[in-house]
């Protein structure tokens, strides 16, 4: 039980490192907002390993810190909206049962993009960004699947880890 704080620190550090690695990869899919979201791997693992509350806290800490380190004011707002919505949907699906880690992660990836799109709509004050929906949905799904497969493997290897 008292290990939780230490583990939370480790997870935060890991999430930050993944955020950093993400900025190093010069992957440009040609469309704004399409990326893998490596840090979400840690969030998914935390959701399964520690719990919903801690995963939320981890997500907020991760977004704010990485936003200050690698991003800007705008990227914090976008990531926060995406991260919160994504995590809310993921915890709902996890609780409802019947979904594998991959399924939960896919929903997370998709709703991460939807959350960002909603903020984009509010900022630009237009519905024209709807044009990006099909791209963002498909991209979110693929990214979520990749992250889900990785998280699944990670969770299998972390079975012995008692939180």
């Amino acid at each position: 039980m008292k290990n939780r704080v230490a583990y939370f620190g480790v997870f935060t550090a890991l999430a930050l490192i993944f955020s950093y690695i993400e900025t190093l990869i010069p992957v440009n899919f040609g469309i704004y907002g399409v990326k893998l979201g490596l840090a979400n791997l840690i969030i998914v693992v935390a959701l399964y390993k520690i719990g919903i509350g801690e995963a939320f806290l981890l997500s907020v800490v991760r977004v704010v810190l990485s936003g200050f380190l690698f991003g800007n004011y705008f990227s914090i707002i976008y990531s926060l909206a995406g991260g919160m919505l994504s995590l809310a949907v993921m915890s709902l699906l996890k609780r409802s049962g019947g979904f594998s880690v991959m399924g939960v992660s896919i929903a997370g990836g998709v709703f991460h993009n939807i959350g960002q799109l909603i903020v984009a709509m509010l900022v630009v004050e237009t519905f024209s960004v709807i044009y990006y929906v099909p791209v963002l949905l498909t991209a979110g799904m693929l990214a979520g699947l990749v992250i889900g497969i990785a998280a699944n493997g990670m969770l299998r290897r972390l079975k012995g880890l008692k939180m």
Partner: protein
Amino acid sequence: MKTGLKKKDWLLILIILCVAGLTVLAHTYIGGRGANKVVVKVDGVIQGTYSLSEDGRIEINDGTNVIEISNGKADMIEADCPDQLCVNQKAVSRNHENIICLPNKVVVEVESVEESEYDAVTN
């Protein structure tokens, strides 16, 4: 190969793909409104931008192609190419709709004026 995906996972993937498909359809039929100009390109180079609200005929490429704008729609009415595919294509008026004459490398695309300012904001 065992994927480990459960029934509900596949259902989720299916739903997402359906929604994505539906938004594509919705965009083609609803989201195209607000388009008000037509851009003419030859071999990738913009030759001119014309308002859809002003009727008229435009000769492109020294007369190899002629488009006509009327009732807010742009239509290719003449082309010197043998297949006449672009002439047979219906008139365009919705955002991102286009007429392409491949032999003459002519592209006529509908656009809306207030586009292309988002990238600066989102980046």
